[in-house]
């Protein structure tokens, strides 16, 4: 291949046609309340680990909905459960993370 000193850039577009939502669907089977997230962000704002590890429950759910992997983010969770206290939709966020870990461990 000829080197032109530049090449096709990778597109940052999220393509829902090719997004693999199997992880999200598995999660919804175990934690159906994940679907009710309205992305208010209170979970992330209150997160103990987030500012230092990049963990964000809001982003975890959104990324799963867009077919992206969230393993690294989930590993940053300390499972303290602070996020459960603030979720206005009553999502059991701590359980959601544990369920995700279970899916990853399978």
């Amino acid at each position, binding site marked *: 291949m*000829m080197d*032109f000193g*530049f090449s*096709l*850039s990778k*597109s940052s577009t999220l393509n829902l046609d090719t997004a693999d939502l199997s992880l999200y669907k598995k999660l919804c089977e175990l934690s159906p309340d994940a679907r009710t997230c309205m992305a208010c962000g209170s979970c992330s704002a209150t997160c103990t680990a987030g500012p230092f590890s990049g963990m964000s429950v809001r982003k975890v759910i959104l990324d799963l909905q867009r077919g992206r992997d969230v393993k690294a983010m989930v590993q940053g969770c300390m499972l303290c459960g602070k996020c459960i206290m603030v979720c206005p939709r009553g999502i059991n966020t701590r359980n959601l993370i544990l369920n995700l870990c279970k899916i990853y461990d399978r």
Partner: protein
Amino acid sequence: MIYQGKQKIWSDYQKEIPDDNWYYVRSCIRQNFFPASEKMFTEITRNVLGKDVYETPFHTTCGGIAYHCDTIPQETVMTIVARQFALMTEAGYENYCPSCITSFGNYAEILETWHEFPELEAKIREDLWKACKREFKKPKYLAHSSDLIYHWRNEIADKARYRLVDKETGEPLKIVEHIGCHYAKMFPHKAVGGAEYPYVLAGMVESWGGQVIDYPERRHCCGYGFRQYHVKANRGYSISNTHKKFESMEPYHPDAIITNCPGCPYFLDRWQYVIAEQTGKTYGRGGYGIPVLTYEELAGIVLGYDPWDLGLQLHQVAVEPLLDKIGIEYDPKAKYLGLNKEDLLRPELPTVLKCC
């Protein structure tokens, strides 16, 4: 696709295009990229259609390219443009026709700015007088040279030797039309057909027998983007945008692409070579690319001009499959003969993209 829906939109975006007496200004770069296109414009308009199209060697760049590369301020561009208008006024013309799309956008933007801010126009008039003792009238009509070919498309069709149809099957050729961004996106009402479904090139294609391909990324920039290309480190963005367009038009198997901008045909043509070298992929049939033509070249083809007099040998993508499909007579051996029949030698062939 509902054709009547598009027609309704086209009817909302019509502009008045006077039939004669045009002051023509050339592009900075087109004569290097597509050397016969502007020559063909004057040839067709003057000698085939018998119109008065005047040009002067004293005109310069409009400054648009430097403006869009952020190297000169708009007031400088305005003064350059004021001088261009002064040349038009001195020559006794009122209808201004730039050959370049960015120029067209630049003129439209400046005229609109002066309309909104008359004090700025007054200042520019003063600056022009200080700089070169010239005065100007603003053009009564501004039309891009593709607007004029669109305006005369049916007269060209009447005089055409060939139609854009497959000579074997009689089917219309499938043509992608690509509009330069600065033609309609800034001022949709100054464009034939508007910005979403521009009709300027589609009208030519229809009139000359072809079928227009409407593909999802039709609005997308060719990728040139001035600073995207001019800075080598940014060329990845430039070629990625071109690549995106080709991926989107690929399922339609277009026979050709027609363009009305200086940069678009260049990049849509040359990047096919680079994409082929980098990814191994070509978009035409049998390893060829999709020929990319300026509207003057396409007009020249249907009018029966010799393809090599149209400068088609300077395209990266081989045009021969298209010429053969239409049934155009040409001498393959004359492809690389200069004006004086001197041999211009052969270009090096790409490793992936098939060329003749």
